[in-house]
Each structure stands twice: as C-alpha cells, then as structure tokens.
C-alpha cells in the first residue's frame, strides 16, 4: 500500500497565491483487470479534495476515476498573506483520507 502523502507548494505572486498539490494514490478505475487472475481490480479513487485557507474552503474538488494516478492539482486564489497556512485533505471511496498543511511562501 502506498504511503498516504500530500506534497503542497504554496507561492505568492503579487496578491495571487498559487497552490500546487501532489497526492500519492493508486486511482484505480474499477475497469482494469488483474492480468494473472483475470479478476477485476476494485475501484479505489479519491472522491473529494478540500483545500482550506484559514478554515475557509477555497476549493472543493469532486473527482471521478478519470483522474490520473498520483493526482496533481493546481489552482489560484487571492486574499492570502505570506506565512498563512493552507490545508489540503482528500477522502476516497474506501473511506480513507489524508491531509497536509503548508505555509504560503
């Protein structure tokens, strides 16, 4: 099982903060078959990603199985200051979840 890790990079340019997040997750579609046994590999994918700044949700992502393995997400928002904490958390269809925090630099 892969480690549940989120790598976040948060950078300010002018008054716009750009967040880049990289998560490790298999993102199984449920359509693939195990080549040896011929059995279907059950779906296992991130459904929700929530990005918070000071407790306010700046972005809520709903993902389907079409998001690539080890998903990457980037977005921009305004109204943050340097040193603020940004929190990214995800939950998947098996009820697993992970979260990480980073400081805006």
């Amino acid at each position: 099982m892969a480690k549940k890790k989120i790598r976040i990079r948060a950078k300010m340019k002018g008054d716009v903060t750009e967040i880049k997040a990289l998560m490790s997750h298999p993102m199984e579609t449920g359509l693939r078959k195990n080549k040896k046994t011929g059995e279907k590999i059950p779906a296992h994918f991130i459904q929700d990603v929530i990005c918070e700044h000071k407790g306010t949700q700046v972005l809520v992502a709903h993902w389907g199985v079409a998001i690539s393995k080890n998903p990457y997400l980037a977005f921009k928002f305004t109204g943050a200051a340097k040193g603020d904490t940004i929190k990214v958390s995800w939950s998947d269809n098996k009820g697993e979840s992970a979260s990480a925090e980073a400081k805006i630099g």
Partner: protein
Amino acid sequence: MKRRSFLKGTVASSMLGVAASAGLLTPQSVLAAWPKAAFEAKSVDGGMEAALGSSDAIESGDIKIKAPDIAENGAVVPITISTGISGVESIAIFIEKNPIPLASSYDLGPTTQGFISCRVKMGKTSDLIAVVKSDGKLYSAKKMIKVTIGGCGG
C-alpha cells in the same frame, strides 16, 4: 504513522472495499456531497445535468484549455483550464469518449480564480469539454485531444 493503527486501518479499509464493491455500502463523504449521479452518467449531457443542474451551455471564447494536441500516454494527460469569466462558481471537466464522461468538478470559493490544473486519463481520442458555471449560467469550451495509447484498459 503508528504501526498498530496503520494495520488496523488497512484491515478496516480492505473490508470496506469488499463491502463497497459488493454494493452493500455506499461511500459517502461527510463534508461535501460527492455528486454520485453525475459520476455515473454515461453521457456528457447527463453528467452536466447532474453536476451543474443544466446541460445548456453557451460556447465561450473566454475559456482556455491548455492541453496537448496529441497525448502519447492516455493515462496521464496534463490539462489546465483558465477563464476570464468573473464570479466563477464551479468548473467541470468532461471527456466525451470516456466510459464516464465527467472527469472532475470543482467548486470554487469567492476568492478563487478561474484556474484549474490537473492530470486526467483518456481512453481514446476525444473532445475535452470544460464547463464553467458563473452566475447560474453555463459556458463551455472544447478541445480535441488525440490519444495514441489509451489509459483506461488493462
């Protein structure tokens, strides 16, 4: 992570997985409702209806899709959607020829800009459709992406 809780978590989640795949348990998120119906729709219109409430989108030149013209590996297609439309509430990404066209949808906060970048899987050559919801109206743009090796089979 503590080893004990890690093991426990693994067992519990694998059991959950079995239950979920058997259709006994519907996974639900606590904070924001995952639009299940939208991710089950087999058509772009159906998915749009379920995710955004309407399938009536006006084509807009103010939505830019940055993606490769030819994707060599359909398993990882980097895409960036950016728009100059103000007051964007949500952005949805559809891939027309995928088994489930809706790839992802994003709800944006009031300070969030109309900019999303992510990586998607594509089964075969298809149109990628970006739909932006602003002020209750839907705007869309599309781009054809050629795929040489599909990313959905196995």
